[in-house]
């Protein structure tokens, strides 16, 4: 099982702070497609991904237990 976290406008669009999904073996890109379809999002091209609090590329394969966070363009500072 994997926890998937959403932030900022992405959380507003999804309507959830986090969800639990079964993503082991999938790539980040595959999970993104699923999320876009499930929640009717427009696209996630500008959204970065973190696995276990480190940035991860679209090709990275998710392991069981990994915590996934989708990170819209940041605006701190």
């Amino acid at each position, binding site marked *: 099982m994997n926890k998937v*976290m959403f*932030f*900022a*406008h992405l959380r*507003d669009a999804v309507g959830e702070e986090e969800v639990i999904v079964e993503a082991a073996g999938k790539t*980040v*890109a595959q999970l*993104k497609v699923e999320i876009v379809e499930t929640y009717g999002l427009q696209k*996630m*091209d*500008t*959204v*970065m*991904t*973190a696995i276990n*609090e*480190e*940035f*991860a*590329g*679209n090709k990275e394969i998710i392991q069981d237990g990994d915590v996934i*966070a989708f*990170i*819209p*363009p*940041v*605006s*701190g*500072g």
Partner: protein
Amino acid sequence: MNYELSKEAINIQSVIDKVVERDAGAITTFIGTVRELTHGKKTLYLVYEAYEAMAVKKLAQIGREIEERWSGAKVAITHRVGRLDITDIAVVIAVSTPHRADAYEANRYAIERIKEIVPIWKKEHWEDGEEWIGNQKETVAYPKGQPEEKDLHE
């Protein structure tokens, strides 16, 4: 504790105190405050939200990058989260170095990196609405779903 998020008002002096060194002659700080007007639009207040655990890690990564690049540098960064009013302090970056040119450059590097890789978001509230602000640097997005290679690893 040199890299923190704070739900309370940031005390500038306490951030500076973390980088004071007997062999550092120069300390720069950057203090980001909430501005009333942006592109002519009047902000009432802001809310900052963070992916807290990762944000602290990324602030620490920026500190390490600076210490590698500017010899003898010490860094402390505190970023506010929650609701902020006009002129409230959003972020304080303190950098000490033996020589002053480095203290400016390293500090500037820190704020630019915060705006690239630290998962903190700002929601602006105006009289007629509110919006999450993103892509402040107005660069292109991340077509590969990630920042550049250098950002991936600590």
